[in-house]
């Protein structure tokens, strides 16, 4: 499955339809993110980013495209709002890895396309979200500790984990349910032959 995911990540760069989707999702990401710039969690270091809710949403519904959008969206947000720090790259890497991690875990443990229709699926979603938030802390905190020794790392870790978990669970769940019910969006499936054909056609068209 990892090989297929890597191939789909490559498709986002090479296939026009995937690129268009990438830009569309990126615009939505930035439009939602920018107004929240003023809500500081740790001054000059951590802002409240409701866009964290888009990590599971983009990850489960769009897979690799979602991973690219989360990473680039977070990076562009930092540039636009003049919030670039030495730990920005770690944040971008985390935002890229976590949607893929969530998708991979869901496929591995639940085995179906993403949906939240029963307690079992909800339980798995919560568990995967908490693990995703902890992974984010693991990826960012050492970098912050290295570049900013004066920052209380423990406070930083708690703040990041708490806000990530809150946003993955609270708006995250509702956005996923709403999008799947209102627009009939299906969870991303790396094995979906239709999606694979679209990607392959796009590549052939480009060639």
């Amino acid at each position, binding site marked *: 499955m990892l090989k297929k995911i890597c191939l789909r990540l490559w498709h986002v760069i090479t296939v026009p339809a995937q690129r268009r989707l990438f830009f569309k999702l990126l615009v939505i990401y930035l439009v*939602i993110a920018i*107004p*929240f*710039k*003023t*809500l*500081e*969690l740790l001054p000059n270091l951590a802002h*409240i980013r*409701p866009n964290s809710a888009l990590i599971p949403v983009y990850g489960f519904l769009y897979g690799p495209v979602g991973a690219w959008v989360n990473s680039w969206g977070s990076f562009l947000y930092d540039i636009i709002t003049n919030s670039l720090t030495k730990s920005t790259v770690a944040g971008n890497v985390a935002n890229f890895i976590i949607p893929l991690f969530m998708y991979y875990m869901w496929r591995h443990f639940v085995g179906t396309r993403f949906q*939240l*229709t*029963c*307690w079992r699926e*909800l339980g798995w979603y919560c568990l995967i979200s908490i693990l995703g938030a902890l992974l984010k802390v693991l990826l960012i905190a050492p970098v912050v500790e290295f570049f900013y020794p004066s920052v209380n790392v423990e406070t930083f870790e*708690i*703040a990041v984990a*708490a*806000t990530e978990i*809150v946003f993955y669970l*609270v*708006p995250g*769940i*509702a*956005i996923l*349910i*709403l999008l799947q*019910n*209102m627009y009939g969006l299906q969870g991303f499936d790396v094995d979906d032959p239709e999606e694979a054909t679209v990607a392959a056609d796009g590549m052939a068209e480009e060639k």
Partner: protein
Amino acid sequence: MNRLQANLCLLTVVICWAFEVMLQKNVPSYVPVIAVMTFNNLIGCTILAVVFWKRIREHLNKKLCLSVLPLGVLNLLYNYLNFSAIRYLSPDVCTFVNTLTVVLMPIILFIFFKEKLQWQVWLGAVLVLAGIVGSLDLSFPKEQTIGLALMGAYAVAWAVYLIMLNKLAKDADAITLTTLILGTVGGMCLIGWVAPNPQAALHMEYSRAFLASAFADAYFICVFATVLNVYTQKYVSSLDAVALYSMQPAVVLIMAATLPPVLAQKIGLTLVNVGCCALITIGAIICQVDWDALKKHPSGEGA
């Protein structure tokens, strides 16, 4: 959308409302409440209109526009009453008294809509009422009595609003309906704010903090929470929705206990508060559970 999904969506709406306090902290104190409401609603309406213009145009009709007018008036009225009541009540009491609607809703449904309700609903309402009474200062100081009267009026307005919204949302498109409600409320607030003193609106300082807060509120509360709320009304009864909204004290208490102060509303974690919150939450759950389905599927599948 199944029952579990609908409940999760309504619970999210409640949590979003609890987070609104955090967004309001950023609003400078010189900005009047009516200006905040004007901006939040009009920004929310504009975002929806721009993004979903095609969809809205498809579903828009004269009948729907006329049906939304009383909803807009009620929305404005209950918000005004709520803001006014907050001045007279402590944050703790205010959080608990907010759930009065779950007590009044069955009464309104029974008297005015002749709906037959299960005895569990009445039991739940009594428990919620006990939780509210437990949170009050029983010597009834004047300030609290005024606050309670305003809260009572607010609860009636909100209950009627929810019953009407629930009926209207069953057939209407959620996004079109939300856009119309936000536009109506925003428009009425604009008139109420600008008409008495046009200079005030022109000379008010539009700081970055205020505008950012207005956008954040518009996204999260006006657009996201309202669309979610309206969309979910298709799948639940007004009573179910109100019962879920009554989980708010529990949500606020849990947030106060677990989240950093920047994210949570200040509420005392006293034994009385926890006890009242437990009574209200149990009452709300009793109201919300589908007892008939539970009898058919004792494992809880139907609930």
